[in-house]
């Protein structure tokens, strides 16, 4: 660790449960991007899940229990950065709403909400990153995940940084802003409807001519990757930070070592 990095803002990475379990590459890429941008990055060991599954299933008490844990785990950092618009959205938008009956916890929730950011918008909007040092020969299309887009206003930021990736061509698909059908537990509670939605998404990805679909949320990416491979379509899926960090040596999501 260099002195320069240590002098930067103290940033906690919230890995998120999906990235921790399914796609560690995303967290490693996030650490690299944050360090490259001069942050003093830490990964608090006490972190687990933000509580969104409970919150969105009506389990307010359970969601609050996990939110309190997260508020405590991330209280000592200048910023908390999340490679997911969905989990970041829960912390930014929902945590304050969870504690409408407790002034003390509401204040703590609002403090965390004010310090929490989705990673790509953090790089551009807070740190002022204009470009990245990365290279990838590919035609990519970007799916705007719902929580990041409509909850946090993440739209231009990933496109701006992707434009600086050497060799990468960005091809917009139709209905890039329409939900892919993941929706957390929705995809297993309503598999048929979800299947129709992700089928439409896969068709739009395919029609864009891109060989790679990028997004900022692993849930959506696993959903799209799984449907693309099930339908035998060409495009592969990666989290946007893998490309921005230049860490695309690992197989794409849902791909083995050899194809």
């Amino acid at each position: 660790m260099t002195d320069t990095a240590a002098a930067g803002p103290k940033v906690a990475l919230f890995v998120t449960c999906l990235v921790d379990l399914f796609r560690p590459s995303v967290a490693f890429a996030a650490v690299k991007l944050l360090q490259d941008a001069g942050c003093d990055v830490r990964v608090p060991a006490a972190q687990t899940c933000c509580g969104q599954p409970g919150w969105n299933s009506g389990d307010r008490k359970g969601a609050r229990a996990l939110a309190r844990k997260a508020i405590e785990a991330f209280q000592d950092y200048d910023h908390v950065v999340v490679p997911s618009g969905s989990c970041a959205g829960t912390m930014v938008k929902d945590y304050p709403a969870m504690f409408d009956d407790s002034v003390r916890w509401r204040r703590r929730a609002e403090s965390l909400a004010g310090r929490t950011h989705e990673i790509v918008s953090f790089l551009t909007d807070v740190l002022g990153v204009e470009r990245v040092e990365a290279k990838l020969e590919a035609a990519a299309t970007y799916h705007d995940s719902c929580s990041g887009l409509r909850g946090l206003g993440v739209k231009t930021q990933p496109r701006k940084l992707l434009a600086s990736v050497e060799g990468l061509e960005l091809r917009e698909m139709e209905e890039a802003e329409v939900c892919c059908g993941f929706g957390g537990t929705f995809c297993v509670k309503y598999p048929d409807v979800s299947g129709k939605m992700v089928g439409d998404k896969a068709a739009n990805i395919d029609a864009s001519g891109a060989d790679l679909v990028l997004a900022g949320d692993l849930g959506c990416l696993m959903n799209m990757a799984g449907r693309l491979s099930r339908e035998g379509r060409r495009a592969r899926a990666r989290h946007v930070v893998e490309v921005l960090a230049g860490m695309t040596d690992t197989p794409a999501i849902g791909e083995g070592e050899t194809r």
Partner: protein
Amino acid sequence: MTLQSTTPEFKRNARGALADEKLQSALAFAKPGFSTKRAQARAALPEFDDLRDAARDLKDHVLGHLDLYLEAYERRVIESGGHVHWAETAEDARRIVLEICRKAEAKTVNKGKTMISEECGINDFLAENGIAPVETDLGEYIIQLRGEHPSHIIAPAVHVTVEEVREAFRKAHGHLPEGRDLEGLDTLLAEARTVLRKKYFEAEVGITGANMLIAETGQSVIVTNEGNGDLSQSLPKVHVVMASIEKIVPTLEDASTILRVLARSATGQEMSVYTTFSQGPRRAEDPDGPEEYHVVLLDNGRSNMLGTEFQDMLRCIRCGACMNHCPVYNAVGGHAYGWVYPGPMGAVLTPSLIGVEEGGQLPNASTFCGRCEAVCPMRIPLPRMMRSWREREFEKRLTPSATRWGLGLWRFVASRPALYRLGTGIASRALAAMGRGGRIAKLPWAGAGWTDQRDFPAPEPGGTFMSRYRPDADGRPS
């Protein structure tokens, strides 16, 4: 209970809808038009979002003083010679409408488009009592011929293909030559117009809905594109307006605020083709108009929403933008929702009106993608309210026990980081072992819902991030 719901069967309804090729082709045909036109209308009016704020604030004010405005409205209607009937339930509304029709010795009742009449099941009720209801809105007419209910609140026949319209007309219009040319939309339209024109002169009573009720003038307002509403209400002797209590706005100026966001959000028009203000029966100096003017004001559960976390839903002006932009609605269409109101607004309103035990499937059938709230002209926080319904269900133990059990387990483990690491480590290895070429084709239990529709990406080999990450003594990446 009013119209019999199949809402608890949403999942089954949805499966049927997805397998229905005609429905899917009709939905695919309709989908892009609504959202494109709304986006264009919005882009053409720089103050559109400010108007949305104004419309929201206006309706919030009304809901805070609903009793006052309703009483003021009632006084104005009476002053202009009309009658106001208060219907606490759908049953009350049916009884009131039937009494008015009987008094008018009605054999035929013409109807402009009204969702409140759908909510009250007026058509079936009148028919059971020997009175023939005739829908005059083209879409409503088509579905009446087909024996259906609306699948969309402003485009009731959006689920019907042109070919099906042709079939319905051939079957229903038996008096017309069998071999006639029915190709082309204009031809179909002309035929419907010819048939309906005659009916306008036969009806003793005309029933319309109301997009708004204006407290300062006692007027009802309807917004249509076909002019059918105007003929339905001005030609018969008796005009009955069916409206719910939250349709009230204080002044004519307030009505114009709502009108400026309504058509733009609904169809992308600046204004609908006809916007008609009606006030009382025909006066001596009027060239035409009904002899009697009645307003049936329906509550049917709405006043119970006041002061609750669902009050914001009463701002709804029934533009349909939420369903036009809803990926779930666009996948399954409106009938799958199983009651009167489909899409996101239906997902919030249905449990409010028929109970969460009956309507609870709907607020669950959402990914919370937020597109509905993003386009709602009244800025109704639809996803937030769907989640509130999920909370009510959870509190009432209506949430399936497997879900409750799973969430409880998740909370227990995720509250204990060491246990959580142990669990995720085991899960990572187990799922990685199940993977073939990086993916899993078939998962058991709840996972089957995933793998029925798509492969499940296996975890990256090498374990979880937290097990691979090696920070230095200060917790920094080394």
